[in-house]
């Protein structure tokens, strides 16, 4: 839920200018019953926040008795009056729950977005469910699968997550694992969930238990939200599946039927809005989960083993860029990055791993000044092979590193991580092409690629 989260103060309710002045001079607050008289018509309703897009300075939004909101245009002649102050509702005190010794213990770390929420139909506010109690209230089925610990680590929209946020998250997950939980769930906005999944995959190695990132494509305030099914599925997986990897757990198709758990280094968001937006690239998902149980599709890299000690390398180099080439591209795009002392450059080239000739001089300059330059493909599916055409060979000769079938986003994260956690560039170059967390595969299989067709 990106919008509509409101506080009850007038200051952050979206009103400004003349309307704000008049409301505050009358000591009117959000939720108060007010009346507005205009041209002989009276409108009565609860004052609502004006936090929606397209708002201006001269409308007041009120909720009528029948539950509908309307906007009333305000001018100097309008008479505004306060009829009744809002009644604040008291929340129930949380119920203390007994730990069920037969169930696994699962930590749910929230980074922002709302995997669960509650709606205040009085004001229209959608408030995130943050505590374990809130989660149990919103998704009561969780009680059947795990003893849940809920933590709010940060409250960031996923497009704003930075490498240092990732570092914080890695440390938090590690500390939860060290506490001996059976699995960790991270509630994450879907936009950059693939990047964070890759970051965790590299920064947390030798995992004893699974870590699952989970999100929702339909906000959790709506009855059709995918969030509950995703959260329940992730809870079942991290609680009992015999796997110890970082995964993304989301809908497998538009139906509320099954979920896939994708390997954190192989997953990408492929659709801006569909529930089944996440797909594995150049690989298969790891698990498929539905009402009947969990099915293993691919062999995991590690099985669950509580004795194993997690290794943590949480740092990331921020000065790494992902550059997509395109017809007519100028070399200044890259030069600017060099001027800014970037240390790594992931090129999302065309086809088998090509870039316009015009970039060659600046890439040469970059590599000579110890910037690591790696190549991925903007085709998304398939492998780079820079030996086939002369352009590729020339780039190879300059020292551009081909990333095989690694996702561009994963290559970016991996390079950020390597630059922050290795001794020298030679080691970076070697490790970049060495599979560390399932991010590279040497065989491309037929069924890994899908073609859309129109069913008739």
């Amino acid at each position: 839920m990106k919008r509509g989260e409101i506080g009850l103060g007038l200051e952050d309710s979206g009103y400004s200018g003349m309307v704000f002045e008049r409301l505050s001079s009358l000591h009117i607050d959000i939720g108060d019953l007010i009346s507005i008289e205009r041209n002989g018509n009276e409108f009565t309703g609860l004052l609502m926040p004006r936090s929606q897009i397209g708002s201006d300075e001269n409308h007041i939004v009120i909720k009528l008795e029948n539950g509908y909101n309307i906007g009333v245009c305000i001018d100097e002649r309008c008479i505004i009056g306060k009829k009744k102050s809002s009644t604040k509702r008291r929340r129930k005190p949380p119920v203390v729950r007994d730990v069920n010794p037969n169930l696994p213990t699962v930590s749910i770390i929230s980074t922002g977005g709302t995997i669960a929420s509650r709606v205040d139909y009085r004001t229209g506010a959608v408030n995130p469910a943050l505590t374990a109690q809130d989660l149990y209230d919103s998704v009561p089925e969780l009680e059947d699968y795990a003893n849940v610990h809920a933590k709010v680590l940060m409250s960031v929209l996923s497009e704003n997550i930075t490498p240092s946020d990732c570092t914080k998250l890695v440390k938090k997950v590690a500390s939860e694992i060290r506490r001996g939980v059976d699995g960790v769930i991270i509630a994450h906005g879907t936009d950059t969930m693939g990047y964070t999944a890759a970051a965790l995959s590299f920064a947390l190695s030798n995992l004893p238990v699974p870590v699952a990132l989970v999100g929702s494509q339909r906000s959790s305030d709506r009855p059709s939200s995918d969030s509950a099914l995703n959260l329940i599925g992730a809870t079942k997986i991290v609680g009992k599946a015999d796997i110890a990897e970082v995964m993304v757990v989301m809908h497998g198709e538009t139906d509320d039927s099954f979920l896939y758990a994708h390997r954190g280094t192989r997953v990408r968001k492929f659709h801006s809005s569909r529930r089944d937006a996440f797909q594995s690239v150049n690989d298969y998902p790891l698990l498929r989960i539905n009402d009947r149980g969990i099915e293993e599709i691919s062999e995991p890299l590690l099985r669950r083993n509580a004795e194993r000690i997690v290794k943590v390398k949480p740092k990331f180099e921020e000065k790494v860029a992902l550059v997509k080439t395109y017809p007519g591209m100028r070399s200044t795009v890259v030069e600017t990055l060099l001027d800014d002392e970037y240390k790594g450059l992931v090129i999302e080239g065309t086809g088998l791993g090509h870039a316009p000739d015009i970039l060659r001089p600046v890439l040469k300059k970059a590599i000579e000044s110890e910037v690591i330059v790696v190549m991925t493909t903007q085709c998304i599916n398939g492998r780079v092979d820079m030996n086939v055409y002369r352009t590729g060979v020339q780039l190879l000769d300059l020292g551009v590193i081909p990333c095989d079938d690694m996702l561009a986003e994963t290559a970016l994260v991996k390079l950020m991580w390597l630059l922050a956690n290795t001794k020298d560039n030679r080691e970076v170059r070697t490790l970049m092409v060495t599979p560390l967390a399932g991010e590279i595969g040497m065989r491309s299989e037929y069924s890994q690629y899908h073609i859309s067709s129109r069913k008739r």
Partner: protein
Amino acid sequence: MSDESWYEHIGLMVGLELHQQLDTERKLFCHCPTVIREDEPQGRFIRRLRPTKSEMGEVDPAALFEFKKKKKFCYEYYNDTTCLVEGDEEPPHDICEEAIDISLTLANLLHSRPVDEIHPMRKIVIDGSNTTGFQRTAIVALGGQVNVGGKDIHIQTIAIEEDAARKIADDERNNMRVYRLDRLGIPLIEIATAPDIRSPHEAQEVALAIGMLLRATGKVKRGLGTIRQDVNVSINGGSITEIKGLQQLDMVAKVVEYEATRQENLLMIRDELRGKGITPSDIAMDIHDVSDLFVHTKSKVIKRALSTGGAVYGVKLSGFSGLLGREIQPDRRLGTELSDYAKFWGGVGGIFHTDELPNYGITKDEVEKLYGFFDAEKDDAIVVVAAHSDRCIAALEAVVRRAKESLIGVPAETRTPLPEGQTKYARPRPGAQRMYPETDVRPVKITAQRLKMIKKHMPEPLEERRKRFVREHGLSKDLAAQIVRSHFLNLYESVTEKLDINPTIVATTFLNTVVSLNREGIPVETIGDMQFERVFSSVAENKISADAIPEMISYLAQNPSATVDDVINATGLARMKQSDLQEIVKGVVSERIDYIRENGERAIGGIMGVVMNKVRGRAEGKTVKALVTSEVNKVIDGGLQQ
């Protein structure tokens, strides 16, 4: 006492909510066309809905109940006329401006005040009819009135909202309901009147009057299911009953009358129970397994239940003997109301109650055993259910709850209309609408400039149109008066505007031909506007004769996928060539020379009849008559010459 004063005496109050589909280019929140389809869907998907937690902890009990039953919803879609928005896989697009304009036009006709800014809301509905779990709805105008029979009926609100998905089937075996996405998102205008209506007849008149205003905009859909109304009925001491989704306007009076009767009868039953000294505590949730009493039963229902692992459960309702069999609406008894609850909450097929026993294979002996088992008096009734035990218990718990309500009076319910005008229980009446803002769609400002444009382009009033049809189209006064009141008004206008065709032919087709075919049971509802237009253009282009229209329409109605050309080929209704017609006339005349000589010009009528029978609509009477007259005259003249 006259009907009107009787209804005044019992304090009848009625409010209407009319929902009319708009005939817009696109849906309210996406760019799909507003078409309903009967061909095989191109795909389907299955979803579930979960009641969202409210700050107030309120959850719609019926919704919660369905969720707990793990109800699944299957949605059928078409690639070319539905999209991800209907499937709740893409955020809604901006509101359809055309729908707003139509609503503003209607607001003008009803003297309502448009709001300054339209705010789309989400109204929680989790019966699966909306993929999102809510219906998007927005108020466009407030207040206003419509004058019906000299009385002002006040309008409360004019709203636009998205129509729901169309229910196709209930797949009980898989605990799944099937919906089709074609209807979801078609713009609906909702007009809610104040509870100003005081008699069934008035309710009907108000519905018709608003219906006519809607058609006057020229922008509404026609046909079954395109207009639906909710009727809210209460009487003194009763409750507001919300009868939802009535599709025939001409049933409004009957539905209101039956509901008033129902509430009166329920109040009478309440008074009788109270008179007997029955209190709510006398009606206990004392539900027992009575399977043992039915081991040797002849009742097929009970035998089947027992042989498939089920049981028989019963409960005593103190003081209800004779009342369960009491009719409260034609053919519906208090027992039927209890049974509706049992079906809804217990998912059972129905109940048995002692007011209707012995019957259905249950013997007098078994009834006596039941009375013995429950230690019941003659004045008590016993209700029995046969099914799986958890269902039996849920069903009887609902029966007891409903029986307790009988002591209070009329339960506040949402009810579904039945074909004859009675109603059955649908679900408890939801409390305050659970609404919150649709944050994915921008609010829309209604500018003064826009309102000016709307005022400038108001549709021609029906009265003006009636006069114009007489003046310019040459319709009779009677036909003109009928067509302006007809569902076909818009189609009549577009056909007569587009095509070079005699307007009287078009009007009589809609007002007489279609009506009489409908009476004969021919499903004329299936014929779309396009098909009608093609029939008329075939007439205009001289492909068929006007006399062939009834047969064309009848064929199209029974073969909805046929094109007009198919029909012409299949029925041989193509207009005959003049020379072929002449051949036929000559043949008929030559076979009847003697008859003509005997009867002279009087023979023309008889010969006409024979020829018309042979050409069956492939030629117009006028043409045939001219040919027959000329041929007959030749024979007469020839005779004279001889």
